[in-house]
């Protein structure tokens, strides 16, 4: 087997895409043409180095791009919700003007409310880890896996969340108004296109991962500089859930309905804790140990 054939099979084994493989082989062929006695290194080692370096770059790029798309979707969603709530009186439960809420919107709104929170957490955590590792030439396999998962979950939940805008537009066509409805479809469509554009990078980062080993990091490593000493991932999650109950409870007090505020706070806190338990390991919030 010639050197280039061996290199091709090693590159293929590490997950380097076919187009990139062809380019690498053409460059090495040119190099060997210039100097047939060149010492290029062992094919397996070289393939691993390509996977390490390209996988690192790809994982970071996927996280930054996913966060960018989610940030646009998040800002658009919040702006549209504020507009429809303040000017048109539409809330998550219906409208202030006693317009009947179609039954089909309730599961959609519940799912999108949950998906929005998962997207926010996954996207922000992807950004945090990518930022923490931004100067690393090579990151570990476990970090690359976590980055790809956070980016993918963030994008998936972000895409689901964007269904809320068309759902409101369809549910309250007379209340929301013509301009809001047009903007709702435009914001949802642009966000969906942005997320679709990022998806190939995330998929590629899931296929091409660095092979370097390393200790898996958890939430405390991502939040490192802002955390008081002695914090564990579970304590962070408990602190966050307590903060949610307090904030939503206070919101209820301000709206002259403290019981409703506390009830919503407890519900949201329970959802947050469930998310931590169910997705914690998968998204690298906590480790096995």
């Amino acid at each position, binding site marked *: 087997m010639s050197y280039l054939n061996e290199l091709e099979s090693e590159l293929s084994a590490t997950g380097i895409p076919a187009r990139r493989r062809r380019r690498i082989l053409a460059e090495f062929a040119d190099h060997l043409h210039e100097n047939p006695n060149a010492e290029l290194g062992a094919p397996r080692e070289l393939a691993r180095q390509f996977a390490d*370096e390209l996988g690192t*770059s790809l994982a970071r790029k996927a996280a930054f791009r996913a966060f960018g798309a989610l940030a646009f979707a998040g800002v658009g969603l919040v702006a549209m919700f504020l507009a429809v709530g303040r000017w048109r009186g539409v809330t998550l439960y219906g409208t202030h003007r006693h317009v009947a809420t179609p039954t089909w919107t309730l599961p959609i709104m519940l799912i999108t409310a949950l998906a929005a929170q998962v997207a926010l957490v996954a996207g922000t955590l992807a950004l945090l880890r990518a930022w923490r590792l931004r100067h690393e*030439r090579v990151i570990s396999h476990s970090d690359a896996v976590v980055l790809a998962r956070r980016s993918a979950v963030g994008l998936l939940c972000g895409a689901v969340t964007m269904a809320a805008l068309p759902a409101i537009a369809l549910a309250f066509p007379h209340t929301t108004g013509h301009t809001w409805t047009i903007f709702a479809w435009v914001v949802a469509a642009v966000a969906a296109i942005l997320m679709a554009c990022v998806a190939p990078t995330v998929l590629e980062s899931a296929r091409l991962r660095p092979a370097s080993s390393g200790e898996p990091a958890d939430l405390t490593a991502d939040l490192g500089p802002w955390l008081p000493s002695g914090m564990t991932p579970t304590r962070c999650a408990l602190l966050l859930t307590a903060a949610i109950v307090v904030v939503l409870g206070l919101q209820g007090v301000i709206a002259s309905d403290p019981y409703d505020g506390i009830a919503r706070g407890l519900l949201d806190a329970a959802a947050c804790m469930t998310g931590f338990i169910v997705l914690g390991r998968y998204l690298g919030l906590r480790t096995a140990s």
Partner: protein
Amino acid sequence: MSMRPEELKGHLDGLILAVVALEPLHGYAVIEQLKARSGGALALPEGTVYPALHRLEADGLLESAWSTASGRRRRVYRITRRGEKELGASRKRWRVFAGTIEAVLA
């Protein structure tokens, strides 16, 4: 005296950016330039430069395009504006590092 590859760890990116900043080069020429400019001291395994070139391009510090020379296709790399900025930062980091080591070893 040639340098061991592990001594170059952390400096390879800056070295590559420095030689590509002078003129657009293909992979083999990058390695030859590194050898020539170091008086033969930078004798690293030649293949290891290519993964670094690909990563620098993926990070937006280099850009590349195919060109044809003597009937052969070769990938020619040129530095980007971001790459020039990074090269400046790399030079600064090196001066601080070398000054610190010099102060202790001298």
